[in-house]
């Protein structure tokens, strides 16, 4: 199964298996990785599953859609060029090994 590394704001890391087709948001929640709230459950309504994607992986991701782009303007932690909502990133074999960093706060 492809792997995702979630890096906490304090630098600690957890690498977990995330099934292809599952979002990085769900991958974190179902593995017990902290730092993601996802209060709307993946409907792209709340901007509380914000992650900073490691630059090396940025180009491999599907483009930011309008709704995600608007929500990203509303994150609790600063939006950066590598900001994404993890509910909108679907895991695939091509993303095996991806590293994402969690922001200081989601709310």
């Amino acid at each position, binding site marked *: 199964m492809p792997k995702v590394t979630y890096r906490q704001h304090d630098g600690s890391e957890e690498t977990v298996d995330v099934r292809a087709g*599952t979002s990085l948001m*769900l991958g974190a*929640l*179902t*593995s*017990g990785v902290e730092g993601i709230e996802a*209060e*709307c*459950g*993946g*409907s*792209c*309504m*709340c901007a509380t599953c914000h992650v900073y994607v490691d630059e090396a992986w940025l180009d491999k991701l599907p483009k930011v859609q*309008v*709704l995600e782009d*608007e*929500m990203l*303007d*509303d994150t609790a932690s600063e939006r950066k060029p590598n900001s994404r909502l993890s509910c909108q990133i679907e895991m695939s074999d091509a993303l095996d090994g991806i590293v994402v960093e969690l922001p200081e706060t989601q*709310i």
Partner: protein
Amino acid sequence: MTTSETAGLVVIGGSHAGHQVAIAARAAGFEGPVTVLSDERELPYQRPPLSKAYLMGKQPREALLFRPAAFYEEQGIDLRLGVGATAIDRAAHTVACDNGTILSYKKLVIATGTRVRPLNVPGSDLGGVHYIRTLADIDAIMAELDRVKSVVVIGGGFIGLEGAAALKTMGRDVAVVELADRLMARGVGATVSEYYATHHRAQGVDVRLSTGVESLAGEDGHVTGVVLSGGETLPADLVIVGIGVLPNQEIAAEAGIDCANGIIVDELTQTSDPDVLAVGDCAQFEGRFFDGPLRLESVQNATDQARTAGAAVAGEKKPYDSAPWFWSDQFDLKLQMTGITAGYDTEVIRGDVAAGEFSVFYFKGDKWLGTDTVNQPANHIASRRLLDAGYALSKAEAGDEGLALKELVKAARKGG
């Protein structure tokens, strides 16, 4: 049987609000014991996907769970599944459970939510008649779907229409029967209602407005049709009833806690008893976003009130004061709502209604109440932020297509 453990936080209810109270209390530094009672047997799960992705088989069961079981263990949250609360003894600071256990509490949070309003016409108890509230409800619907050709949805609110859209997408014949003269009348304005009726019809849903249900017809104990107020019978192998919900407030009322349409709470989610709080769909409160007391049935309200309650349990005052927001996904349409817009007298529209990309700003006199957007997320987010900031949007601003609301948000934030 009385437990002898130290009294801490007890939460009645393990859905959106209930489980979040426990997490928020821990996040705010509460170190005492935390017990969450849930009368459902599932780990706390997301309800919104039930009428959408889960029903369509697009979201697996495990992807509904908020957190894995291990998370609650790590957090020191004692999750008791399949256990309901039956009575509160405020003097003794105890809760009686339906398994015979009696739990002591220092602080009690009631997050009992709502239950479906039952359909009360002849034939309501026939097989094939379902509601959409719990995971078990949807599992029961899905178990029958292979044999279903025709569906009648009774109630044209959010839940009913989401279910109708999902089942139509899955190739079933679907009719929606609504008593009011427009869809989602409680939640959105007339233009949005009309657009959704048109869109559902264009997708092949038979939408009947201003139509009541006389009875359900059946054969061998299973529903075969829905008899309408005009006498016509719509064929149905499956009926979904979505005619609203009722707050589960009895346990509070019986304990002498003040209730009206819901358990009455203040901005810190405290009830008339200082050691008892209530959050989510079962709680009624007042606020600056609407006149008079209100009970909100939404994820946003459940989550935000739960955070306030969790903080309060840990001794932190974090008043609940966020603009209400809601969403509904039907077919390819994203409906996003913010504010409480019932009672509006004027709609100001931006965008192209016919094209399915528009925003409706609602006013009562000159006061802006809130905004509904269809496939225009930018206006939704900006409206939410403007409401939060207390910005008095004018009709001229609302109607000015050239004015990006985002700019107003920046200005409002600087000013504030």
